[in-house]
């Protein structure tokens, strides 16, 4: 059985087909309104993440399917000491597909080993979050018409931001892509990823100020600087306001720029930017619903077949 654990479980061609289906669903949602009637998605959130859970549930409900699950670990059986694998064995008897989020890295792999149904990783700690990456890819393709030759600016916490790591990995598979990494020295992209870019001959540059590079970017991907990533409050306070996008800075950018953010934001994008046509982070949320619809559809259709994800 195939699962989706990591974005690299999907080939470039598989991603293309998923995005095609997602875009069709976005244009003609009524055609899919009953397409998953009778199917059940379980959302197992061993770590609360209301946005991601709502996005999955909305996706399934938009296709006439049903959802069950628990929103937080205190209401789950693992809170009573049950193992993850036992929980998965039990829940996979009640549903056709599982979306799970877990604070521990690699948890979805352990789950997939015992599951009777396909598993979608909805985030495992700071490790992988492939449906966020699919959301990002769908947004980039819709806004820019494709991936080839784009210059992507990634701004903020590039060290701990897993959405950034997955996006770099995913985008590195398209020809002509270049990266501009905008971060303070403390929060730079990890060495293994820059080594990977050098190995693949993908151009990137590391800068500390977005003003210098904004005019050259096709995409500006903003991230939040999370308090829980810091051991010390002073470091957090010093860095959290360093990389804030304001209308003044945006004025430096070209008309073709698109500003993205995985949300929720704290203050790294001024709300005054929201109505600028180049701000697409709320469209990104909408796209997340449709690309999850496409993913659920594919994985249910191809359960055991030749497409979609991780083999175990």
């Amino acid at each position, binding site marked *: 059985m195939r699962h989706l654990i990591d974005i690299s479980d999907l080939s470039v061609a598989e991603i293309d087909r998923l995005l095609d289906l997602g875009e069709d669903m976005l244009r003609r949602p009524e055609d899919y309104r009953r397409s998953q009637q009778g199917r059940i998605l379980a959302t197992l959130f061993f770590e609360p993440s209301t946005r991601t859970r709502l996005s999955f549930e909305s996706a399934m409900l938009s296709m006439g399917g049903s959802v069950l699950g628990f929103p937080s670990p205190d209401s789950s059986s693992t809170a009573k000491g049950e*193992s993850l*694998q036992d929980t998965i064995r039990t829940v996979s008897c009640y549903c056709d597909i599982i979306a799970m989020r877990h604070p*521990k*890295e*690699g*948890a979805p792999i*352990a789950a997939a080993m015992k599951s009777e149904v396909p598993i979608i990783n909805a985030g495992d*700690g700071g*490790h992988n979050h492939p449906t966020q990456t699919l959301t990002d890819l769908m947004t980039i393709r819709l806004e820019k018409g494709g991936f080839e030759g784009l210059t992507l600016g990634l701004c903020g916490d590039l060290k701990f931001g897993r959405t950034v790591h997955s996006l770099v990995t995913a985008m590195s598979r398209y020809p002509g892509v270049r990266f501009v990494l905008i971060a303070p020295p403390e929060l730079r992209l990890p060495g293994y990823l820059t080594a990977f870019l050098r190995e693949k001959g993908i151009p990137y540059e590391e800068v500390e100020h977005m003003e210098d590079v904004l005019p050259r970017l096709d995409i500006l991907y903003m991230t939040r600087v999370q308090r829980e990533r810091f051991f010390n409050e002073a470091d957090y306070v010093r860095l959290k306001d360093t990389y804030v996008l304001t209308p003044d800075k945006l004025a430096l950018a070209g008309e073709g720029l698109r500003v993205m953010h995985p949300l929720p934001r704290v203050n790294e994008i001024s709300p005054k930017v929201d109505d600028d046509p180049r701000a697409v982070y709320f469209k990104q949320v909408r796209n997340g619903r449709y690309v999850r619809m496409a993913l659920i559809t594919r994985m249910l259709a191809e359960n055991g077949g030749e497409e979609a994800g991780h083999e175990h």
Partner: protein
Amino acid sequence: MNIDSIRRGIVLDHIQAGRSMEIYRALGLEELPCSVAIIRNVKSNAMGKKDIIKIDDDIDIDLDVLGYIDPGITVNIIVDGVITEKKHLALPRRLVNMGRCRNPRCITTQEANLDQVFVLADPARKIYRCLYCDAEQRGTDAP
């Protein structure tokens, strides 16, 4: 036991000098009823000095453990006083339950019954990664 003339058994040759005791323990040789000889600091043209372990019985050696500790070791199988087989080791592609993942955020730190599995990621640098969390397990004592 005459260490030079084993009739039937195993000779582990080309062990890096000083590492024979580690291998002795890792293979559980102290549990064996047969005689086991550890010969240290033997002169070697290729290595300067080397260690040798001779085991006076035809036991099952865990080649994965051995290959992980030192892929340069040669395993000679002796039958009727002659070497019938020379096995050269390679780094195993997967290590199961040899050590624990070092990443405190890994699912293996929470889920008690999971096998600890490490996958060979870079043979040249002898780097393994945790199957679950991808964390690198580096160095001679890792995982």
